[in-house]
C-alpha cells in the first residue's frame, strides 16, 4: 500500500514567502489538517538563503544583494548559504510518527534523498548520497539539503541545481578570509555540477522546459523510491494566509534575518 502524500507545485515566489509557506505546511501537517506533503517551487527574484546557525554578515554581502535585487532570507533549518537561481527546490513534510520518518537525522536524509536520486536516475543522471546532506553526480555536488524537526513533524527542503553561475554567486556570497575570490570560484567550479552539465541534451532547453522536465522526473522518483501515491493539490487558504503572515512578520524581519 503506497503512502498518500499531497503534491504541491507552487511556482516562483519571493524568498520570505517560500520559507513562510514551508513553515505553514509544517504547522498544517503537525495539526493534522493536511496530508504529508511534497512541494516543488522556485525563487523570483533570485535569493540567498542562509542556515539557521549562520551569521548573516559573515556569509552574505547584503548590500550587493540589495543592489542586484536579490532576496535574502534565514531558513529555519541548519546548513549553509545557498544562492537560489536556476534550480528546482523541494520540501517534504511528514509527521515523525510516519513510517518514512527515521528517528536518526542521517538515516532520514539517506531515505528521503532516495527520491531525488531516483528522479535524477530517471533523467539519466547517476547520483549518490554524500553524507551529511548532499547528493553528488560524477563526484560533484548536484543537490544540497537541510532538515529540521518541529511540532512532531519532519521538514526537509533542498535544491536540485539546474544550472550554476559561480561567478554571479560570489558577487553576493562572502569569500572566507583564508581564500582568494579566484581560488574559491575555481574550487567551487571543480566541486559543483548541474543537470545542464550532466545532460548535454539539456543545453538547448529553455530554463522553463528544464525546470518542468526535472520536476516530472522528481515526482516519479519520489513516488518510486518512497512508495508514494501523490495527490496533486494546492495549498489551503489557511496555509496561504499563514505563509503570508510568516513572510511579513518573521522571514522579512531584520530581527530574524540578523538573528546571528
Amino acid at each position, binding site marked *: 500500500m503506497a503512502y498518500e502524500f499531497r503534491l504541491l507545485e507552487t511556482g516562483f515566489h519571493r524568498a520570505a514567502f517560500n520559507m513562510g509557506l514551508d513553515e505553514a505546511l509544517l504547522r498544517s501537517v503537525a495539526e493534522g489538517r493536511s496530508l504529508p506533503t511534497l512541494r516543488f517551487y522556485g525563487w523570483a527574484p533570485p535569493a540567498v538563503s542562509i542556515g539557521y546557525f549562520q551569521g548573516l554578515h559573515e556569509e552574505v554581502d547584503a548590500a550587493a544583494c540589495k543592489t542586484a535585487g536579490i532576496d535574502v532570507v534565514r531558513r529555519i533549518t541548519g546548513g549553509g548559504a545557498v544562492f537560489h537561481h536556476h534550480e528546482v527546490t523541494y520540501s517534504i513534510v511528514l509527521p515523525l510518527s510516519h513510517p518514512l520518518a527515521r528517528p536518526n*537525522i542521517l538515516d532520514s536524509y539517506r531515505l528521503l534523498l532516495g527520491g531525488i536520486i531516483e528522479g535524477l536516475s530517471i533523467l539519466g543522471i547517476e547520483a549518490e548520497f554524500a553524507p551529511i546532506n548532499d547528493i553528488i553526480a560524477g563526484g560533484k555536488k548536484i543537490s544540497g539539503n537541510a532538515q529540521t524537526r518541529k511540532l512532531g513533524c519532519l521538514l526537509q527542503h533542498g535544491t536540485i541545481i539546474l544550472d550554476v553561475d559561480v561567478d554571479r554567486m560570489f558577487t553576493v556570497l562572502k569569500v572566507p578570509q583564508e581564500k582568494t575570490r579566484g581560488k574559491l570560484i575555481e574550487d567551487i567550479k571543480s566541486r559543483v555540477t548541474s543537470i545542464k552539465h550532466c545532460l548535454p541534451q539539456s543545453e538547448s532547453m529553455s530554463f522553463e522546459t528544464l525546470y518542468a522536465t526535472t520536476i516530472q522526473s522528481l515526482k516519479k522518483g519520489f513516488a518510486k523510491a518512497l512508495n508514494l501515491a501523490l495527490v496533486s493539490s494546492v495549498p489551503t487558504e489557511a496555509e496561504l494566509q499563514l505563509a503570508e503572515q510568516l513572510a511579513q512578520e518573521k522571514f522579512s524581519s531584520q530581527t530574524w534575518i540578523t538573528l546571528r
Partner: protein
Amino acid sequence: MRLELVGKPEGCKLLRMTIDVEPPLVPSSRIRSLSIRGDFFAVPEEAFDELERKLEGTTLEELGKKFDGLIGQNGLECLGITGSGLDEIIQKELHNGI
C-alpha cells in the same frame, strides 16, 4: 577580551565562534558569553540556542567536554559540530596566543 575564531576541524562543518573571556588568555579562562555559528545542523535548533547559554561560565579548556555533555542531556542531535572540534579551534588559538 573577545576571541573571533574560525576553523573546519576534521568531521565538522565550518565553525565560527565569538567568545568573550576573562583575561588573561589561558586554558582556565572563564567564558563570559559565546556565539557559535556555521553551516552545521542541530535539532531542535532552539535547544542549541539554550545550550550556548549553558556554556557561559565554563572555562576554555572544558568547553568541548561540557558541549558534548549538554548534547546528551538536552536530546539535541548535532551533525557537523562536535565538542572535540570546538576544542581543536580553541587549542589553536591558545597555542597562538600564549
